[in-house]
Each structure stands twice: as C-alpha cells, then as structure tokens.
C-alpha cells in the first residue's frame, strides 16, 4: 500500500516538481547515484560475512553493477546541473557489522532483495513519468538490471536458507515490514523537519533582533581576545587532563 502510494507520488509529483524546480532534478538523480553506491558498499561489507566463495563471487558481480548504476546516474545528473552537486552525505546505516551473526546476515540479504524489488518498480515508474529520453533510457536500463538482481538475490537467499522456502518467505516478509516502517520514519522525519524549520523561523525572527548585536560584537574581537580565549581553553584542558 505504502509502496503504491510512493509510486503514485513519483508519477504525479516528480514531473511537476522537476519542472518548477529544475535544480531538484539534478539533485534527485545524484541522490540515486549515492543510493546505488551505498548499496554497493553495503554488499561489499556483506561479503566479509559469507564463507562460500561462489556466493561471494556473485556478490562481487552485484557490487560492480551497483557501482556501474551509480556512474550512470552521476553522468546523467551532470546534464542537468551547472555546478558541482555538493549533496550532504547521509550517514551510513551499518546494517551489518563485525558482531553480526549468520541470522543477521540472512536478514540483511532479505532486506537487499526487498530493496531491489522496490527500486525496480520505482525506477520503472520514474522512466514512464518523466518526459525526457536520456532520463527514461537510464532508468529503464537500471530497472532491467535491478529486475535481474531481484531474481538473483531471491535465488541466493533461498540457497543461504538451505533451500527452506518457508524461512525464505518469512525473512522477506519481515524485511518488507521493516522497509515499510523505515519509509514511515523517513516521512515522519521530513514532516518533523518542516515543523522544526517553522519553529526555528519564529525563534530566528523573534530572537534575531536581540542576538544580532552580540553576534556582531563577537566579530569585533581583537586578535588578542582570540589568543586569550585559546589560552584559556588550553588552561582548562590541562586542568581537566
């Protein structure tokens, strides 16, 4: 349901927003590049926890494809921006780490599978929603690859679960729920940011009148004021250490 709502938004809102704010187009495509690169890095991390070299080799192939997709989106984004896109890097969620168990790894891999399945559908919706040949071509190309990944990851997950179909389906279901919850939290975070921005704007305009003077005063500090400040910082540190 949430996924479908997401796709409806892509279909209806994205062309409109990209038309009104052309800079958003480059930013959004560049974000896709970052997401694909992040997938590659997560899979690389994942390789550390796999004992079977055949599966590891398949993962390596998958990593190369994700980097390739990142390249495609990066090149595409350049067509729509006059300046370097300096997007802030979202801090990476370490889904899997040194202390992870085999079960954690299976959960992670099921999550990868669900992710592939979702983006595959999303990319197709983007391709059909945007009236631009190069964008459409890139999204369709990546969607086709992701479609293969969806099938491939399903197969690997099945093998990792010792050909236990019930366990495989259970892991996929848990991952779908987790992904839906994650999308919900992202949406809530964005709404929260809007509310936060609203309150901060009020604080800014109310408090600014009082703060502006003291702020400007701080910029009038002399070099010796700054030197004294640094000396005091060092003296405090010495006491604490």
């Amino acid at each position, binding site marked *: 349901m949430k996924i479908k709502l997401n796709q409806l938004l892509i279909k209806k809102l994205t062309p409109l927003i990209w038309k009104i704010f052309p800079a958003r187009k480059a930013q959004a495509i560049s974000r896709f590049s970052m997401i694909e*690169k992040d997938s*590659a*890095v997560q899979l*690389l991390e994942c*390789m550390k926890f796999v004992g079977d*070299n*055949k599966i*590891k*080799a398949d993962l*390596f*192939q998958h*990593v*190369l*494809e994700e*980097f*390739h997709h990142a*390249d495609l989106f*990066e090149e595409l984004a*350049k067509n729509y921006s*006059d*300046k*370097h896109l*300096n997007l802030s*890097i979202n*801090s*990476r969620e*370490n889904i899997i*780490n*040194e202390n992870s168990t085999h079960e954690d790894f299976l959960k992670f891999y099921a999550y990868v599978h669900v992710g592939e399945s979702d983006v595959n559908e999303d990319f197709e919706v983007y391709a059909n929603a945007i009236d631009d040949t190069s964008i459409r071509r890139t999204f369709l190309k990546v969607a086709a690859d992701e479609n293969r990944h969806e099938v491939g990851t399903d197969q690997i997950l099945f093998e990792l679960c010792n050909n236990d179909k019930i366990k495989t389906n259970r892991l996929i279901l848990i991952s779908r729920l987790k992904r839906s919850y994650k999308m919900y939290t992202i949406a809530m975070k964005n709404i929260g*940011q809007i509310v*936060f*921005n609203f309150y*901060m*704007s009020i*604080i*800014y*305009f109310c408090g*600014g*009148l009082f*703060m*502006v003077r*003291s*702020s*400007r005063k*701080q*910029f009038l*500090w002399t*070099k010796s004021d*700054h*030197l004294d*400040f*640094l*000396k005091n*910082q*060092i003296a405090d*540190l*010495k006491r*604490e*250490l």
Partner: protein
Amino acid sequence: MNILGISSNYHDSSAAIVIKGEVIASSAEERFTLQKHDPSFPEKSINYCLKKAGIKKSDIDLVVYHEDPHVKLSRTLSSAFKNFPYSLATFIKTSTEACTSAFWLKYEIAKYLSIDLKKIMFIPHHLSHCAHSFLTSGFDEAAIVTIDAVGEWTASCIFHGTKTDTGFKLEPLEVFPFPNSLGLVYSAFTAFLGFKVNDGECSTMALSAFGKPRYLKEIKNIILLNTEDVQIDLSYFDFKRDDQLPFTEKFYSVFGAPRSYKSKYSFDCMDDLKSDYDEREMYYADVACSLQTVLEEAVLLLIRKAKNLTGSVNLCYGGGVALNCVANSKILESKLFENVYIPCDPGDGGGAMGAALFASMFYGNKPSNYLVSPYLGQNYEVDPFLELMAKIDPSEWNRFSKIKTNRLNKDQIEIRKFDSKDAFLDSVAQLLADNQIIGFFNGRFENGPRALGNRSILCRADNISLAKQMSETIKLRASFRPYACAMTEEFAKEAIEDNYSGNLNKWMQASFKIKKEYVPKLRAGLHIDHSTRAQIVSQGDNQDFYSLLKKYGKICGVEAIINTSFNEQGFPIVASPIEALIMFARTNLKYLAIENVIIAKRE
C-alpha cells in the same frame, strides 16, 4: 593509558589510537566506506584502530575529539545572526546540525563506545593540528604554524613547541581569527575555476603552473597583506548563500563568470608550454597563478612571523593549506628555517592523531624522538582473496566500466604467486621496465591523502604515451594534473636541483625542480615547469618500495618511477584487495601486484 582520537562532522573523518604515547593505528573513515572525504562518525576506523591495538571498547581510558563543537556552534550561530534578517537558511541549517550532532556529540561517542561522559574531551581544532605536527616531528623545539579554512573561531595560528623534562609545552603566540581565512578564499577560487570545493584545491594548484600572475592586484584586493597581518575583504564573498559558488556581484564584476565544471581544460602537463592556448582557459590559469602567488606570499608572511616570534630553526606546519606542495617549496626556498616538517596527513584527517597525542602527553609520556610512520592503516591477508579470485567470472566486467574495455574470459586472468618477496619485487620491476602499468598493494595502507608505495599505481617515468594511457583509461585524470615521481634518495641526490636533505620530501609534501639532464628520463612524472612532487624513499622509510626502486634501477638505469594513488576518480585510495580488484575490473589496469601475487589480464 589507551587514548582514542576522533575527527568527524566536516570532512575527512578519522580515528587514531595512542597507547603509552605511541601511535598504534590510524585511518580515515573514507578508506572503509569508499566515500571520498567521508564526514560521518568514524565507526569503522574506530573498530579498526581497536582491533589493531588488540583492545576492546571498555579498555579505552580517554576519548579526545579534534575540536570543540560547542565553540564551533557559537561561531556558526554568530555568523547566522550577524547577517540577520538575511540568514534564515543558514540559521536553520546550523540549528539542525546543532540539534542532530553538536549538542549530542559527547552522548553519541559515549553511547557508541559505552564509555563514561567524563572520559570524553574536546581539544581545540588548531591545537589538534599543532600537536599533530609537533609531536610527530621528532623535534625538541619548533615554531609551529597551522593554516586551514576554519576551526572554531580560528583560521590560522602560530605556536611555540618545546619538549621539557616532564613532557612538552605548546604555547599559542598569535591567532588569525575567522573570517580572515586563506583556506576559505583558496577554496572559493577553486569553485570559481570549475573544481569541487574541499577536493579540487590540488587542481587549482596544478592549473596555476600554466598561467602568469597577471591578476595579483585584483587578488591582493581580496587577500590584504601587510607585514604583520593577513586579512580578507569579505565583500567579495557570500558564504552563507551557496557553498559551491559563494560570490557576490562585486566578485563577478572583477573576475567575470565562473568556469563551468563541465568544461575541461585542454592544458597538458606532459607537453611543452605553448603560446597559443585558448584565451578563456588562459584567463582562468592566470587567475589560478595569481591566487597561488598571493597564497605563497601570505604563507611566507605567517612563517616569517613565526620565525620572528620564536627564533627557532625548526618549523612544524599543519592544517589543510599545508597540502599545497608548491607553497611548501617556497618555504624551503626562503631558507627561513633549517628544518621543515609537515605530517603526512596535515588536514582534518590528522586531527584525530594530534588530539590523541596531545592528551597522551599528560599521562607520563614524552614526545617521540623519531618521525611517526605514515603506514598506520590496515593490512590484509592475500590467501582468502585468492580463494575468491578462483570463483570470480570476469566475462561481464567490460559492461561495468566507465571506459571501453575488452571482454575477458576466465582463462584470461592469470594468477602468479611468488615464494619470496624478493622474487615478487623482481617480477614487478621487470613488468615496469616492460612498459606495464601496475596496481601495487603492499602491507599497511598509508595515513593521509598521498599514496606512498603501499597503495600505488606505478609505471615508467620516461614513457609519456604510457602515462597518458594511464590518465585516459585508468585514472580518468585531467591532462593538466601532473603525476609525481618516487625515487631512491641516492637517485634524488643526482637528479634534483638544490637537493634538500630534510624530511619534507619523504611524503610528497613539496615539489622539486629536476636537473635538465634528467628531464627526459622522468618527463612523464613532471609538471609543465619540470618540477615533481617527489617521494624520496630511503631504506628505513619503506623497505619493499625502496627495493623495488633499486631493482627497477638495475634494469633501466633510473631509480625513479611514476607513483600515483591507487584509486579511481571520485573514490578514496583503495584499502583492501577486493577494492583493488574492483578498480582492476572497472578500468584498463592490466596488472595487480598484491603482497606476493601478480594478477594479470591476458588479451
């Protein structure tokens, strides 16, 4: 006493572990996340450092952070309110950062490491730089200069450092406060010239060699120099509006439109200097040259001031601006100091180590009498990698490459394992002599932004077409950016003009002019002015790399090769064998030399 240093939240996050005053391990987070200049909390680097030191989180006695985020917040908020009511966006951005990181940083660290809040301390940014450069230098006493964009309220600093019977003393002598920042101005012009801020500054420096200083007056109207001070006329910049093109109308009226980042410069550092370059490109090169010249003057002004204030014969120099190897050469040429030292990672990445070393000196440790090695990163076993290689199918690699590569079958990948390091190095030297380009991977990776022979791509320095092939099909490197040469110290004594015997040449910190008779032998590794940012290798620095240079010298008569970082455009230098394999798969790199194994593509 186990002390963990952390640097994060701006760019080049890193971690370092210091035990009993000795640096055991250090790494930038980007090496583990493949995100160049990664600013995120350095979890992976911390984990690596603890593992290398053989300790657990609970064994950490103290955590030090490379700056004081609360003081930094006071500066960003003051900057926002100073421009009231035109700075709402900056204020919201600053407030968001404050609420998500600055306020909670101690708690974040404490939670991640399961450590008491009292065991976490903040070290002022420039003090971290200062401690890093002094406490890794081996000097008993030195003038210390730090110059970067901004740390808390400070842009540049002068300290005096001395070793004492009980430890050391670092005394701040002069502070050059924000916003009078040389680093910020250099970065702003980097954006103007079409390069990426906090990444493309080396391109600005490289471009400057093609220009003439025709715009000194205009630049000096921005960077105001007198005998005592460096000040910036901020009316040319609007840092609150756009960090990629932070200029005002006044700036545009003097310098015109910025160069589009999509336009490539046609300068070629391996050609001879021409007189008929494109007029518009020449303009930007002239601006870069003028900027570089004024920066050198400003750096020398601060260095001279440090000399006058301390009277020392030793200089330690840190902060991001210390990565400018052309300006560093001018410091050497000035002969103001007998000895000049710059750590291998003078930027923010080195702040973690500096903070940790600083704190360790308060617990009965004394500064080292030797240079701290740059090889502090992780090493990897090759056998698990070879087992994986046996299963890898290269038939689709050509689909994933940015550049055209040929389709390979599995039997076209040849793996050769050597019984001894000596035989392995013999074979690598022969391949280099046979005009091959080799990805060379050996031991622990280097700390800092330079590849120093453990994660390097190597090739002959006398073969220009080979170097161009490397630029076009492997590194995707702009033709105006020069490669650098690695050479043995014996060869350097013969080939370098005004041979400098200090430490600045060990880690590619300064550029040196090559004697005329050696230019043809090294031309592919030289800039347009026949200078090179040489890595001069002695046996004690890096035994294997030194042996390789010697072996190559025996075959070719020249103990020098091109040494460039082992990374693809847009990626950090590779850390693990798998990352090296990714680059091998995605580019036209034909040889991978890992520890004692050579992997080759046979076509």
